[in-house]
Structures are given as C-alpha cells and as structure tokens.
C-alpha cells in the first residue's frame, strides 16, 4: 500500500467531500489524515490516502472535479514515522493586529530561530484585522514567559499583539 497526498482547491459547493470520498472508496483507497477548511471562501482540502492504485489512476478518477472549478493534485508521499516528542514543551501562540505584509514571516521566523516547530496553523484576515493561531512544539523545554517576552518584542516590529498559552494535555 502506497501513500499519496491529494489536494483539492477551489470554488465551494455542498458535496465535494462526499464526491471525492465516494470516488476514492470505489478505488479501495483509504482516507487517512485529512484537513479541510474554507480559505476566504475557497474550499481547501489536503488528504493523505493509502492505496494500491497508481497516482495516475487516482488523478484520472478525480479528473471530473475540474469541470467544477476545482484544482486537484495527486502526489506520492513517503510514510513519515512520528518521532517521540522529546522532553520539550508545546504552546498555542495567538497573534492579532492590523493587517500588513510580513506578520507571519516575522513571528514564525522568530519561532524557528528558537527551535520551535509549527504543528498546526491558521491565519485569518477579517476586515482589517489579521489573526494567526499556531501550535508550536519545542524539542527542548522552553519557558513560557521567556517565549512570550521574545515573541512580543518581535510582534512590536510588525505591530501585532502576541499571546502564548501552554498547550497542556491532561490524561484522564
């Protein structure tokens, strides 16, 4: 069984997911992880699919979506093994401020320079307000206050407020 990454992007309508998954199920292709949202009204879906079919076969199966103003891509991917997360720490980082170019670059550049890895990200523009919410893992322990102070300083350079919350998980 090989893995492929499928992306479906374009004009939203009811039933896109139902159509794509019905086509994949017919091909005996299994939808593993996937994430879909609307980005400024555009349907945007990324899927990792396990199948014995070839990339060309799956692409041909999904070609009918093109007549629907949807752009589909199918690419082979390797099976990424999840590494243990080390002794580190995780945070939810929230950013908001007046929209301008370079906010995401400034904040994520700083995060990367401290060794942080973004594992989940949403950026949204509404009216003039720009909002970024990121989940970030650090392989080594990171102090929440130190991170807050550093990111707020970076945030000031691009005119945004930054809040940092520990992403605690409690096993019950």
């Amino acid at each position, binding site marked *: 069984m090989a893995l492929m990454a499928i992306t479906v992007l374009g004009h939203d309508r009811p039933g896109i997911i139902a159509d794509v998954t019905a086509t994949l199920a017919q091909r005996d292709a299994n939808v593993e992880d996937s994430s879909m*949202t609307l980005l400024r009204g555009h349907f945007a879906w990324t899927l990792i699919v396990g199948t014995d079919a070839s990339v060309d076969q799956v692409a041909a199966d999904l070609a009918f979506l093109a007549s629907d103003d949807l752009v589909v891509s199918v690419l082979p991917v390797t099976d990424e093994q*999840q590494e*243990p*997360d*080390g*002794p*580190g720490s*995780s945070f939810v980082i929230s950013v908001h401020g007046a929209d301008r170019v370079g906010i995401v670059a400034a904040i994520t550049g700083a995060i990367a320079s401290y060794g942080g890895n973004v*594992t*989940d990200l*949403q950026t949204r523009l509404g009216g003039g307000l720009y909002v970024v919410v990121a*989940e970030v*893992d650090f392989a080594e322990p990171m102090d929440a206050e130190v991170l807050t102070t550093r990111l707020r300083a970076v945030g000031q350079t691009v005119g945004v407020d930054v809040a940092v919350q520990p*992403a*605690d*998980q*409690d*096993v*019950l």
Partner: protein
Amino acid sequence: MTPLQVELPDGVVREVVTAPAAVLSEPCLPVDPADPDVVRLAADLLATMDVSPGCVGLAANQVGVPWRVFCLDVSAHPKTRTCHGRFVMVNPQILQASRNEKAREGCMSVPDFTGDVKRASRLVVTGQLPGTGEHVTLTTDAFEARAVQHEVDHLDGLLFIDRVVSAAAIHKRKVYLD
C-alpha cells in the same frame, strides 16, 4: 464530609481496552455495590490505575466491564484544587454542573489523540461506595470535577471525542520522553 475510602481486597491489574471497542460506546448498567464481584472490580480498577503512569481515573468499561463503577485519584495533579483522594464510586450521578472551562484532555482508551473539551468546573456528584453501599454526595471543582465528568461520560458510553468543541479540536497526542 464522609470519607470515601473503604476497605477493599487487593486488586488485580486488568487490561485497559482501547477504542474502537464496543464496550466503550455503550451505556453501563447500574450494579449492587455490595455484590462481591463489584467489590472485586473496585479493587481491580484501583490496582490498574496505580500501575498506569499518569492515570488519574478509570471507568469499569475501560477494563471491559459494562458496569457503572469508576475510580479516581487526582491528588498528585497540579491542576487539582478540591481533592477527595483515592476512591471508587458506584452508580454515580451528576446532580449539578456549572462554570464550563475548556481544556485539552487525553484518555488511556484513546491513546493517539487529545481533544479540547468544555467541562463544568463546579460539580456535585452522588453515588455509592463499594462494599458498604453507603450513599455519598461530593462537591468538587477544577481538575477533580473534570476527571469525574470524564469517567461518568465513559459510563454513559461517551468518549472525549464525542464532546470536542470544534472540528479543529482533535490533536495528535504528544508523547514526551522523560
């Protein structure tokens, strides 16, 4: 306050079942707290909780038994305020729940995921003690309130996955190395 700790035999560690086991998705049955099998189950739940790292509570159906019994011990958890120690409750029923707070929780029966779940941070729960069958009502808050609701949800056939606050609220569980 009635002490919740009762004399129980030594328990045996049982295997914790994981989703998608059917027993986790069905409501559990009320039982007689004086039934020797219930007393044994109570002891076994505590024994199983004790050997499971980080485990603060266990519902009977998590060891495959569809009875309304859970054990709890949040005394070592940093988010605990009110704490009733290490105890077992039979036939629990939540009487009052208020002041919802959101937090990310995981579960031994759903080992690969965590989820953001709103739970009441003030709670009144009633139930019986194993063996004696004594009726007890406890008022609690913060992490103990969350843990009780998580366990009672198990007994109602619900997992935290059934209660996540949004489509983006399921996360890969992080496994930290010490």
